[in-house]
């Protein structure tokens, strides 16, 4: 297939960009070299201890805390001229914060950017994992607001660090079990806790639990940065990531009985779009790259009848749009 590349650079060719675009008065990729070394050492330890939150000397970034400073510090420590960067927020490349972060790295590192998942070497994300399967040697960097999965059960840092140290995760299971007793299900729709490599309970960042299964044995390296909370953690490629559950209440992802109104996808995570004051709505893919790719291939949704239930095929059990 002869697909046109979507790689964008600020100034025409690759080389001229690297020489000319880099912001004056600041080091390459903004951070000073000493800070990068500190972050790099932290990343290596994080990779060696999957799921363990490693404290690091997080710096002030020129974006506010809570807006991706942790992810940006990791990206700034990794990024170089051979990288192609994709930045998404809520699955979309064109959300304002994604645009702002992408622009930051093209200004400070003169790096090439793309919206195509398969072209990217580095993907910085907030709240989603792309629908396109990530492959070997890609690196996905998650922006993390609260890295501590036990925080809302036990707010004290001293206590939770002891629990992680001793693998004493009783309170987490009690909490999940209480949910089931009270609500008939685990009341966690996003930031659903996972167990990494059978040792550490980890926050997957606030991705919807729909995305949790993608983390398990993912061929790409997964790095997590929490700037305000000053923690970095990682999941190496092909590492077991299990969403916490019980034998009688196995983990389930959101059932999605609808199709994307633009591309007709019946298997991707959908955003609900409210169209008018009467509350009419339709659903579209949250992953804009995935959606565009399908539209390019000729797939179409049905906007006449936008809220369309996918039918379960009796033969295969798959859900299909009518």
């Amino acid at each position, binding site marked *: 297939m002869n697909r046109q590349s979507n790689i964008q650079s600020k100034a025409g060719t690759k080389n001229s960009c690297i020489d000319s675009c880099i912001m004056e008065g600041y080091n390459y990729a903004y951070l000073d070299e000493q800070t990068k070394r500190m972050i790099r050492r932290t990343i290596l330890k994080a990779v060696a201890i999957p799921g363990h939150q490693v404290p690091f000397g997080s710096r002030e970034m020129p974006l506010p805390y*809570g807006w991706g400073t942790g992810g940006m510090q990791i990206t700034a420590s990794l990024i170089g001229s051979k990288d192609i960067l994709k930045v998404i927020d809520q699955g979309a490349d064109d959300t304002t914060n994604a645009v702002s972060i992408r622009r930051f790295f093209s200004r400070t590192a003169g790096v090439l950017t793309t919206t195509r998942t398969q072209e990217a070497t580095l993907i910085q994300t907030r709240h989603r994992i792309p629908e396109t399967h990530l492959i070997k040697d890609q690196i996905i960097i998650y922006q993390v607001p609260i890295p501590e999965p036990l925080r809302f059960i036990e707010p004290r840092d001293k206590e939770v660090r002891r629990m992680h140290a001793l693998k004493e995760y009783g309170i987490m299971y009690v909490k999940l079990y209480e949910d089931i007793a009270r609500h008939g299900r685990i009341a966690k729709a996003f930031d659903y806790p996972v167990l990494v490599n059978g040792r550490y309970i980890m926050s997957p960042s606030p991705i*919807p639990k729909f995305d949790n299964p993608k983390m398990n044995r993912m061929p790409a390296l997964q790095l997590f940065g929490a700037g305000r909370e000053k923690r970095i953690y990682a999941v190496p490629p092909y590492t077991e990531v299990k969403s916490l559950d019980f034998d009688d209440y196995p983990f389930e992802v959101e059932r999605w009985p609808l199709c994307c109104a633009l591309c007709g996808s019946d298997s991707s995570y959908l955003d609900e779009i409210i169209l008018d004051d009467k509350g009419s709505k339709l659903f579209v893919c949250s992953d804009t790259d995935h959606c565009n790719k399908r539209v390019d291939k000729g797939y179409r949704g049905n906007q006449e009848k936008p809220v369309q239930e996918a039918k379960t095929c009796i033969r295969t059990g798959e859900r299909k749009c009518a």
Partner: protein
Amino acid sequence: MYVAVKGGKEAITNAHKLLAEKRRGDPRVPELGISQIKEQLGLSVDRVMTEGSLYDSELAAIAIKQAQGDLVEAIFLVRAYRTTLSRFGFSIPIETTRMQIQRRISSSFKDIPGGQILGPTYDYTHRLIDFTLRVPENVNSEICRAESAEKAIQNNMTRVADLLANEGLLDNEATYGNNGPVADLTRDPLELPAGRDVRLQNLARGDEGFILSLAYSLQRGFGASGHPFLGEIRYGKVTVEFVPEELGFPIEIGEIPITECIMFNRFMGSSDTPPQFIKGYGLTFGHCERKAMAMSIVDYALSSRELGEKNEYPAQDEEFVLFHSDNVQAAGFVEHLKLPHYVDFQADLVLMRNRLAEFKNDGRKNRGIEDEQAI
């Protein structure tokens, strides 16, 4: 036909243009100069330098101008610049007894060696709007100049605390057992329990409003220590000295104005510590008196662990105080709620819709049972 929204890039560019326009305001009004901010909004500059952890009045003034006077935004600008600066080394500790004093008062003693020096203060002003300030040239520059005193204020003024220390009535800081290298929060993550060096650095960088309210809560009764006494507050210039590796002796690299506050807190004694007054300490760049006082009150409250006191109030809880004092962190995280969250909200919507459907079903079931029982 629904088409997905695009154009984040143009939207941001346009927003920046609008912001620049709003910042400038009506172009018929003369633009603010940096020196005007430095000279006439000095207390704003001082707060931005203190919480920005960077002594540079020029930079703080630019940040205030850029932030349209929003000091938390200006502090953020200064911090984000500071973090990119490389370090040459560490100055030797400043000596505040050698301060060139402009203001110095103690409310613990009626008179003190060197005297009470009121200096430039709002303390005894009547808070009446001065309408003469509305017309710029109305205030004659002659009237603005204070007459110089007949006698110069003495330099090298002993701190009030040092006068009391001789009696053994004041802690000698050994309680904190802190003689190692001074920690630096801007390089290393906060680890608990935190030493006093870390706590003081955190409070000095902390939001004035937050620290002020914590101090107030301690005074109002959410604190065990009772009434703190202002041992001394002093404001003036101190010399900063630095030892270059190749010289091996200190050289003067400049003078900076600072505010220092020492608060006395009554401590009734414990099994191994005699009864005494414990000092609470506050220090800021420039003139930030309210902040320095609040800081010194909270500093003492956070010493409950070392003093073997109960830790029962919010302002004594170092984890609560230290993790929530920074306004750059707090503002960022509160304001990040402006970022899109629709993916997570969608996940919660699905969960809540299911839950509501079940709730309605359960309701019907429950009513059915009641009906049967009624029969």
